[in-house]
């Protein structure tokens, strides 16, 4: 989970959540209140930070912070 810290920073900035709420098993929808518009902003911020183009469907399928970190660990050089 090497990208966790960077993902945490992006989340705090993009969706205005609290640092202590960002855990690997935190649910994007239920714990962090991410709605469909937040998901778009988050996607754009992740793309900017990591230089990887995440298809919207792939992001919408992610349920937890850990899912995002895993995707980036697998897809970012």
């Amino acid at each position, binding site marked *: 989970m090497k990208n966790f810290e960077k993902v945490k920073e992006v989340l705090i900035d993009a969706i205005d959540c609290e640092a202590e709420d960002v855990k690997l098993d935190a649910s994007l929808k239920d714990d962090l209140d991410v*709605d*469909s*518009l937040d*998901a*778009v*902003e988050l*996607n*754009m911020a992740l793309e900017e930070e990591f230089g990887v183009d995440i298809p*919207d469907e792939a992001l919408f399928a992610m349920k937890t912070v850990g899912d995002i970190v895993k995707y980036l660990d697998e897809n970012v050089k």
Partner: protein
Amino acid sequence: MNGIKIISTGRGIPSKKVTNNDLAKIVDTNDEWITSRTGIKSRYYCGDNESNVDLAYEAAKIAIEKNNIDKSKIGVCVVATFAAKTKVPSIACNIQSMLELDEIPCFDINAACTGFVYAVEVAKHLTSKEKPYMLVVCSEQISRKMDFDDRGTCVLFGDGAGAIIAENSDNLYHSMIKAKGNKEILNCDKYIKMDGSGVFRFAVGIVPKIIKELLENADLSVDDVDQIICHQANQRILAHISKKMKVPMDKLYMNLQNYGNTSSASIPIALDEMLEKNMIKRGDKVMMIGFGGGLTWGGILLEY
């Protein structure tokens, strides 16, 4: 003279106020969802005997009467509208006769929500020495294009019209208008159909680019701009702009909570309200930014 000086404004708002709770009676939605996703609390729909011709007439009439505009000096009337019920005569021709304007060029244009910026850019070339004023009206009756089974879209829009009267001037003025054809993200035939995430992504991506281009052309920073009037599509878009461009929310006027998204009319309605509230004074640098179906986008940076 590349610029324009705005000399009067007006707005026309229809009679039927429709709150989120009113909509919740006929649509599978609720006040909390609409408010949190969009910021909208109410919007206005034309009644059975109202159309966007009436709204355009009212907005233009107010603009003319408010500052005792000499109608014979109006050299062109351009109306931005994307869903006029009657195509011929155009709304512009209709209001030419209702307002008893001279026999000047009158026509409608369609640039969806970017209609105001497009209309100004067109109208400013059609004035003359004898008839130096341009009448630009944006008038939308979107309620007739709402699919009330599409709960994500039908809650967003409202009817309304805004008008400006302006003359060519040497004031600071920079502008840009662009388009890129795309029918998937946003289209309107019988009903408006939107890919909500796609539209949001387009808007939050394009608005900072418009702002940056206008500032670069004017050799100004965002702090030099006194007010930014953004097309009133969604509060979340405005919040994103505020954060990304470091513009305080009190410089980003918002009235979408009352009117919803009135497409091209949103900028002139906002401008009219801001002037009424003395939020803009002569010499202020004002930016107006439109973006919408087409896809179209554009902006104006001027000294008021």
